[in-house]
């Protein structure tokens, strides 16, 4: 599959480890799992995908859900502070 633009947002620990809140990427990743694997080569993400949730276009989604051009992908770790 050819590369296309995906908008990615990071929260909590991921934001800290990526050093940014969001970015627009050109990627060939077919689904969030591949996208996260690609991002782990660039950023020191310590959390495995099993510990995160992914949301695509404002809906919690699956790691195997196909990505389309223009999708907004959010990686969210659990937080418990209070």
């Amino acid at each position: 599959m050819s590369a296309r633009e995906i908008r990615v947002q990071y929260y909590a620990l991921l934001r800290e480890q990526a050093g940014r809140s969001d970015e627009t990427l050109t990627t060939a990743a077919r689904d969030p799992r591949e996208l996260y694997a690609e991002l782990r080569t660039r950023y020191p993400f310590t959390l495995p995908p099993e510990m995160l949730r992914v949301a695509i276009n404002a809906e919690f989604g699956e790691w195997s859900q196909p990505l389309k051009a223009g999708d907004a992908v959010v990686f969210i770790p659990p937080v418990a502070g209070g």
Partner: protein
Amino acid sequence: MSPFRFSTDALDTAALQRALRDERCGGFASFEGWVRNHNEGHAVTRLEYEAFTELAEKEGARIVEEARTKFGVTRAACAHRVGSLALGDVAVWVGVSAAHRDEAFRACRFIIDEVKHRVPIWKKEHYVNGDSGWVNCERCAMPAAHTHEHEHQHAVHAPAPDYSRQIALREVGVEGQAQLRSASVLVVGAGGLGVPVLQYLAGAGVGRLGIIDADRLEPSNLHRQTWYALSECGQEKSSLAAARVSALNPEVRVEAHALRLDAHNAERLCAGHDLILDCSDNFATKFLLNDLALRTGKPVMFASVYQYEGQLQLVRGDSATAFLRCVWPDARDGLVGNCAEAGVLGPVPGVFGSLQALEALKFLLGLPGLKPGEMLIFDLITLRTQRLRAHRQPECEAHRRAASSGELQAPDELEVHFSSLADAASAGFAFVDVRDSREREAEPLPADTLHLPMSKLLTDAAKLALTGRYLMICATGKRSAAAAALLRSQGFLECRSLRGGLKSLKVSA
């Protein structure tokens, strides 16, 4: 004539009883409260009562009417003295006539209990030694609140709470105010989130507030828990919060519980509340509340913060929407930092606690807001908000069935307590140190300890045997719990974490 009256003269109990005579009634029950000669170790010589008469009469009449409806009794009345009373005087009288004795007794008991809790009456005790003091025992009679009630002074002529600014809202009005007054909310955690939540719910006149917090105030809490005072450090937060609620709004019935919510007490503590607000800082509590929502159908609103951001989620047990576990099936404490580990800017829990209070009031008033199953994420660095829809996971259905048939599950024993490393070794554990090399040098563990820092945990996990009985160790028990959880998810099922970390060994030694 109002069924609740104040009197500056001695109560004529015979006349009061005559007024309740009714040929339909087969029973009459009454209660008299007398002025006694001592209170909490002080010898008392006489008493003075004062009341906000107008407000108090309305509330008293409401209580008597409630009792008549609730127990189906024929007639009921209550009279309360104000002014100066001598020892032995009748301070309060309650009478109920009914067809049968049972409802007469129960209604009588209900009226006196509610009057003591809800009607604003102040009592000034005069002691043998010449001292005197205003005590508000009548209104702070909840057992848990009893320890703090004498520490704060009640203004004798304080004005009555005034909700006019919110009643003015078309969506609230007098009816909405009555709804808030009849509502009962349990707030789990009186920290960064719980403080603004309690402030706004008490201010709004929510009728009953339960507070659960096992912690004592620490100086490091105060940058975000700005309701408390530095001089109060070391005191139980639940009691401090209850005292603040009573000072802000004496109409609120407040109950403080200085304990940690667990599988055994959760159901009892949540019973009788219309809404549970999770203001806790750990997943063990959050999942316990999630499971309680599953089991009992009670709505729970969750809030969690991290550094500059947070998440808000409403779970309704009676709807088909997502639960917390649908979103986070595997979340564990220690995996990502809490406020102590990761840091937090004070106003961040302030914002989320305020949002939680706002959503709670809207929920009680039936106004639109966060939908069940929906998660609000607010990043306070970029000021970006997201509302994410979550879906019910099939496992949650299975979980709901399991939950409805049995006890709440205590979290599995990921963490274990030992008083010494020698005890742990004799229990057959091999040690795994997850601290970094600097910490390890400063405080070395026995020579045969494996060193597996958090950053290399998964890559180096191959050094461990799948069936090995390992005890993960760090300074405070947080990282080691996360490490044990992570390793368990990778199949190392015999991993445990030393509860409280090395710090706990020092304390017990």
